[in-house]
């Protein structure tokens, strides 16, 4: 079972809540009205997949705020292609992974433009392992997250990262090696 599915917080995901409750007490009507603008199957996906996708994005970007932002954008993309997408969940996951990669690239460019400064998505808490994960190159980090958090097979990881299965395996291997070096340093 993927780590994602074992997390206790997954059970508390708002995805299980009725549509009218997801946006908080003061906004029930507005939320319900907004949901009414979408097809029921899309609403269902949104409710079920939003929280897990945000968590995935948090692991890929390190930022909660950015993660929610990117996941909303990914849902907008899915919505635009709703009638043509064969597997909405897979499409959504791919959109999230791609968005996170783009966000990392943008952040890197901005950092180099601003000449140094701390990572905007750096973890403030002392968690050596997570810091090490964040320090990995994006593809290694994504490969580890997709394998050990999402529990995806290498073939699917390869597809998401746009590489061959062997390369995905190598990314996982090198990612672990790198993590070990950083932790044991």
């Amino acid at each position: 079972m993927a780590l994602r599915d074992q997390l206790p917080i997954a059970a508390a995901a708002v995805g299980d809540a009725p549509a009218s409750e997801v946006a908080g007490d003061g906004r029930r009507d507005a939320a319900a009205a907004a949901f009414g603008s979408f097809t029921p199957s899309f609403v269902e996906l949104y409710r079920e997949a939003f929280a897990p996708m945000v968590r995935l994005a948090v692991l890929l970007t390190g930022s909660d705020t950015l993660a929610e932002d990117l996941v909303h954008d990914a849902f907008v993309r899915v919505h635009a292609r709703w009638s043509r997408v064969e597997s909405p969940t897979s499409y959504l996951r791919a959109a999230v992974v791609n968005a996170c990669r783009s966000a990392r690239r943008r952040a890197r460019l901005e950092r180099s433009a601003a000449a140094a400064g701390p990572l905007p998505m750096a973890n403030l808490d002392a968690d050596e392992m997570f810091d090490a994960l964040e320090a990995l190159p994006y593809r290694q980090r994504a490969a580890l997250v997709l394998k050990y958090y999402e529990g995806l097979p290498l073939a699917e990881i390869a597809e998401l990262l746009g590489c061959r299965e062997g390369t995905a395996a190598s990314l996982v291997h090198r990612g672990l090696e790198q993590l070990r070096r950083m932790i044991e340093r």
Partner: protein
Amino acid sequence: MNDEELVDELERSVTRRLERVSPRPDPEVLLTRVRQRAARQRARVIVVAAALVVAAGVGGYLVGDAGGHDATPTTVAAPPSDGTPPATAPDATLVEPVDPVAARAAVTQAFEDAFDGSTLPAARDAATQDGAALHQLRDDVLAYARRFGYTPAQLAGTTITVLDVSFIDETHASVRFTITVPGRGEVMVDKVGYAVFDGGRWKVALRTACDLISLDGIVGRCPPS
């Protein structure tokens, strides 16, 4: 630390990190973004449509029944089967028709018949190589032009001015021309197309007509050569 211990530690770390994450779906945010995207797409379509309409002015050709055609030529080229000249000239000496003056007038007339908005359909077909093959394309582009607000009068008022005719050989000529649309002025200035001597008369080469009408393939499909 072996791989297993490392992965265990990684999973614990991930779990700790995610315990602080409490995402809440917000359909209002989603709806706003969906609407923003739709607005951006509408704006993009309008920009593209505006560009196409300018190009479309070109095509009084299609006006046909009263209407016109959109067209966006630049320099039109194509294989010999659709009327364009062979890629390589036989030699440096160009061979003109026996009566170049009459031939030049006939080529000019063919382009005027083909692209002037007021030409009757039968005359337009006769002035175009394989003209009947373009009916469907003409209809498609007419509908397209109407969708973007082109009026039949505007399309019917389209005129072409042939600037120069140069013979490539006895049966092919290159033609420089400018197309003018009422209210828009010269929408295509000094463009190049080809004429071909086909079926006993000079005609606009099929590919030239097709590329003009279809806005270089943007609207509709040219018939196979």
